[in-house]
């Protein structure tokens, strides 16, 4: 039972939260302006702090761009701009509650600048006092958007001043309260926004919180020799690991439990993905240096690493790749560079871009992932990604490898499953890395954004291999800064479930199968807010795109040049799995700089049997690569593996993402999106197909002659 839940959609009925430090000035000011508040389509728990009508939102800094007239709201959740509907025009259905073009969640605001013709521009914080009436307000968002708001001509209107200060303060207070994870205010969100007519997704994204999800995905990979272990179901083995783990089936749970202690944060090697050819991709934290394993323990660790193979290749994901700190540094530099009026001279743009090192980091990640993907495809072995904590770059490399090697991961559903499994469930510390609650900037690092950039590079190099388009990646990029969704709020499943329990007041037990099981999911959309919703009803997941993107926007997620690859995993002939017994000793290699090197001392402790003798030793790294044609950078689709180019000119800046803030630096005629064009093409094709069978009236020859011709130029 949820005692405080109210099925209220009217924003004004909601009382401001008691914990909100609001001055009397705000509440009284709020009471005075009832009219705009009523018009504001808020979300439950949201209330309007200030509103200023007659604001113009211009699309660029200079005046030659169009502007839209509307009302600017500042609420306790976000800054929202609601365009005025011209009389007589049909009101635009606001199906998405966080309009990607107009709204900014408060934690997403990076910098707030007020400008006026009489005074120089001023960066505003909660404590700063504004000494002039602002004529223009510029919001620099952390997702690289830049929003310009111009206040009405008279300028002297107090509204401009008030709303500006309200935003400055709200942005700051949000920092203190961290209200986004406050359960009492947000649990209604999903129910409130789910429109009943929303079609049920035939195959929902697997959240990997229940046993079924893990089993279903394991079935898809189809590996014999692996099972789902429930050893960590109550998070008593490792708090940062997911509840369920994929481990070799030969290994019993009690054997498995011996291994935990010997890895950092007790994060043991576990399966990420299995190549249809028989290789396995695993990920693990580094060995715990201070542990003292017994012989039995070492055997368990070895069994986990080898995973039934005779050979195991350890990939150190820390080597060659940037650290989170370096990623953050590059990202900050990149953001500074991509501001509308950068400090660097125009002709120094290239070297400044290079100086951010962001592209270099992207390249390093793509290269590493393609090395691993090729290794998986060419050899039969187990490949273990090892990082000290297994929570940052392992997520990135593991998911990139799967993008390269698994066609299923390149569909939208597959990609969402991938992110959910390798990032969310695997315990990437999103709370710290995205730093939405702004409790200290220390751990902030856009590792996930780097992954999205890498994905974009792949998408650009293999446009037909991906079912989703650039718009989808952009949406995901932006959404990761929006705290209305549970997906990126927590650092691991344990944290999430703790909050979930806390939230579900009446719930005295933790469901055995996890709390996001299938029946619950079905009930949720229809359930009214007062209905006993499970703990899962706290916040919607980001994958319910219908909540924040309109149907039209979602249609653009689809990549229309996508040519479906065979989704079924067909193992190449002659690759039937060799059953290697656990007693068989294996050889361990280390992948470094695109070459394999035998690894004599893998463990920090000395009594592993792996080190003693390898039945298959190679004298030097070169001979291995020459034996069967080590992956060169020669462009090839090794079976189904995408091998991207990583040389300098091949890695490019994601302009649509990073340069969005300055349309004037894009060129005047923005090229129409490819997806738009191809959509048109497909439409034509459909027409023709129809025409083919029904002998319907064909389009006039002028129309169908050139594919591009029916398109109006998009300006």
């Amino acid at each position, binding site marked *: 039972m949820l005692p405080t839940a109210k099925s209220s959609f009217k924003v004004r009925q909601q009382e401001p939260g008691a914990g909100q430090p609001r001055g009397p000035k705000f509440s009284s000011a709020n009471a005075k302006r009832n009219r705009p508040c009523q018009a504001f389509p808020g979300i439950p728990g949201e209330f309007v702090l200030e509103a200023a009508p007659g604001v113009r939102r211009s699309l660029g800094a200079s005046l030659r761009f169009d502007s839209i007239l509307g009302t600017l709201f500042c609420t306790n959740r976000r800054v929202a701009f609601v365009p005025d509907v011209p009389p007589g025009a049909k009101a635009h259905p606001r199906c998405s509650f966080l309009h990607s073009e107009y709204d900014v969640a408060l934690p997403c605001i990076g910098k707030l600048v007020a400008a006026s013709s009489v005074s120089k521009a001023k960066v505003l914080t909660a404590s700063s006092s504004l000494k002039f009436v602002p004529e223009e307000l510029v919001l620099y968002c952390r997702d690289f958007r830049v929003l310009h708001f111009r206040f009405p001509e008279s300028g002297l209107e107090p509204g401009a001043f008030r709303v500006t200060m309200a935003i400055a303060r709200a942005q700051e207070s949000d920092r203190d309260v961290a209200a986004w994870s406050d359960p009492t205010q947000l649990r209604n969100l999903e129910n409130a926004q789910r429109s009943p007519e929303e079609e049920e997704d035939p195959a929902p994204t697997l959240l990997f919180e229940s046993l079924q999800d893990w089993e279903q995905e394991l079935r898809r990979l189809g590996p014999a020799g692996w099972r789902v272990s429930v050893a960590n179901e109550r998070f008593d083995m490792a708090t940062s690991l997911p509840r369920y783990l994929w481990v070799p089936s030969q290994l019993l749970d009690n054997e498995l439990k011996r291994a935990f202690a010997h890895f950092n944060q007790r994060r043991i090697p576990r399966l990420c993905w299995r190549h249809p050819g028989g290789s396995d991709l695993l990920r693990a934290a580094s060995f715990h240096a201070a542990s003292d394993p017994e012989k039995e323990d070492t055997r368990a660790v070895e069994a986990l690493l080898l995973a039934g193979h005779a050979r195991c290749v350890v990939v150190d994901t820390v080597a060659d790749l940037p650290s989170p700190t370096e990623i953050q540094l590059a990202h900050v530099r990149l953001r500074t560079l991509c501001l509308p009026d950068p400090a660097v001279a*125009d*002709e120094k743009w290239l070297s400044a871009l290079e100086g951010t090192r962001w592209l270099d980091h992207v*390249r390093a990640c793509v290269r590493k992932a393609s090395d691993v993907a090729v290794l998986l495809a060419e050899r039969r072995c187990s490949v273990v990604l090892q990082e000290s904590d297994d929570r940052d770059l392992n997520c990135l490399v593991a998911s990139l490898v799967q993008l390269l090697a698994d066609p299923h991961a390149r569909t939208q559903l597959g990609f969402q499953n991938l992110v959910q499994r390798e990032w969310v469930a695997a315990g990437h510390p999103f709370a710290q890395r995205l730093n939405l609650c702004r409790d200290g900037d220390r751990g902030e690092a856009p590792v996930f954004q780097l992954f999205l950039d890498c994905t974009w590079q792949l998408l650009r190099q293999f446009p037909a291999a991906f079912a989703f388009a650039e718009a989808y990646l952009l949406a995901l990029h932006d959404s990761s800064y929006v705290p209305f969704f549970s997906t990126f709020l927590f650092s691991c499943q344990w944290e999430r479930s703790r909050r979930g329990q806390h939230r579900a007041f009446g719930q005295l037990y933790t469901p055995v199968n996890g709390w996001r099981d299938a029946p619950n999911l079905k009930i949720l959309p229809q359930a009214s807010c007062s209905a006993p919703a499970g703990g899962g009803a706290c916040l919607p997941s980001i994958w319910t795109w219908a909540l924040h993107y309109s149907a039209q926007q979602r249609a653009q997620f689809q990549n229309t040049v996508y040519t479906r690859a065979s989704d079924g995993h067909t193992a190449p002939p002659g690759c039937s799995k060799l059953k290697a017994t656990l007693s068989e000793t294996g050889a361990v290699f280390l992948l470094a700089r695109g070459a394999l090197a035998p690894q004599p001392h893998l463990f920090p402790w000395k009594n592993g049997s792996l080190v003693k003798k390898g039945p298959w030793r190679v004298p030097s790294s070169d001979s291995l690569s020459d034996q069967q044609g080590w992956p060169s950078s020669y*462009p090839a689709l090794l079976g189904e593996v995408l091998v991207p180019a990583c040389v300098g000119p091949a890695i490019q800046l994601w302009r649509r993402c990073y340069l969005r803030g300055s349309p004037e630096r*894009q060129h005047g*005629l923005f090229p129409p999106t490819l997806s738009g064009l191809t959509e048109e093409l497909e439409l034509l094709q459909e027409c023709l197909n129809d025409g083919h069978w029904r002998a319907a009236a064909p389009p006039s020859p002028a129309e169908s002659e050139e*594919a*591009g011709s029916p*398109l109006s130029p998009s300006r």
Partner: protein
Amino acid sequence: MEHIRTTKVEQVKLLDRFSTNNKSLTGTLYLTATHLLFIDSGQKETWILHHHIAAVEKLALTTSGCPLVIQCKNFRIVHFIVPRERDCHDIYNSLLQLSRPVRYDELYAFSYNPKQKESEQVKGWQLIDLAEEYKRMGVPNTNWQLSDANRDYKVCETYPRDLYVPRIASKPIIVGSSKFRSKGRFPVLSYYHKDKEAAICRCSQPLSGFSARCLEDEHMLQAISKANPANRYMYVMDTRPKLNAMANRAAGKGYENEDNYSNIRFQFVGIENIHVMRSSLQKLLEVSGIRGLSVNDFLSGLENSGWLRHIKAVLDAAVVLAKAIVVENASVLVHCSDGWDRTSQVCSLGALLLDSYYRTIKGFMVLIEKDWISFGHKFSDRCCQLDGDPKEISPVFTQFLECVWNLTEQFPQAFEYNEAFLLQIHEHVHSCQFGNFLGNCQKEREELKLREKTYSLWPFLLDEQKKYLNPLYNPDFSRKLTLLEPNTVSLNFKFWRNMYHQFDRTMHPRQSVYNLIMDMNEQNKQLERDMKELEAKIKVRNKQQNAVLTKEPLQSVHPTLKTQCFKKDQPLLPGNDAIRTIEGSNTADNRYSEYMEEFSKAEPAVVSLEYGVARMTC
């Protein structure tokens, strides 16, 4: 042939330039009179035209053999390893000789024979007619006329015979003006903007020195500005940096003094000279040739080469030119030093921004023929067709193509041609396989009798134009734009990977969206053809039915039926109508369903036609 000592070497290795682990292909190297040919074990052939070879280098002997590096003008770089040093030496010497022809008649164009009839050859040369082109622009007219001053190349050797000048510029003015201009290249019309009645004119620098003047030249410029009824003043664009122009004054050349000419506005636009461009390209090639090519070395190397900055400067100048015409309605006179390098670049790009015709395949050929070939861009010297002064070599035309490429990137819907077209033209500017680009000026070309002895490139490009079509081209959109306004902020200029790494397959993107769209386009067209075929079937069937109907005396009862049948002669027959017709004729109900069955079987059209004919005759 006398240079060739070894014609065939076996067991030669071809190295991949960007491979990290020295991957190589083994095969046989053949040396012919015109090409160097490498056939690898997979029977893949690599042809290198001798004229394309820019430099041959023999590296120090290694254990596996003698390395031979060949750099080509189309930016191909091949790295062979020849097992025996003697073979390598022979090939090296032969290539040195063969890649440096001394006389024009040694060029490939004079031996190339595409097995065309003589009439086709003549027709090929007549494909581009510049008189026609000037007519398209709207000259001659009341203000502009064709001048016969240069009929016999008497006034200027490097200009074409037919020149268009203001009607009020008399012959003495022309001659006087030409004496005051470097190399006699006096101001003439390059492009006429019909709507604005403004003109782009071109010339070379005046021989003004520090104080010299020439009344005829002043009259000439005045005549140009008077030929524009819309605007009194005209612009004079000196495309050189101001310093260079001032230095030229010491040599008795220089630039126009604004005080001496009435109604001119003088402006420098600062494009560097051919020597700067040459060394910039050299730096660019060094950067793009680094093997590991990390992002970090690449971008700063690219910036330091200055290449993109020069491209930007050229395009900037063209934008200034085009805006003067469209926004201010003013005529513009463009010159540099001799008026055949930077002037050609700026005039042709300006016209490209202004006129959608030049953004079509045929139009682009016309543009090159007009502003580059006929006005005497020194292709032979700049592209080093003959063994000559290395200081005359400069990538001026390559820059022009790269500017156009940047425009196609910014306006993907505005151009009928694609990147492959530009690359192919670049290829043949250096190949000397066709006569178009041989020699330095029209007079020289006539003396070489190129029209009789060689073939023109353009008809061959037109024949395979399918390869060069841009699938996104939108002709209406292109025509509607009065002016292409590219954004020339530095970050919009990209490295042209497909030009500089055209032959490095490692560097290419893995899939091309353009190709995918082209394929879909092709599919669409196939479907359309299928549809037409099916329509033809319906037509036949209707006729047949008509025949049936005429046998039965139902015709008079259904007069409407007949009119509808006549309508079917339209090329694109609305299919629904046809079906309705059949339904309307009550006799044919059962037959109608029969037809539909047959349609769904989708039998070959020929069979059904025969079937129809059979029924008609019976």
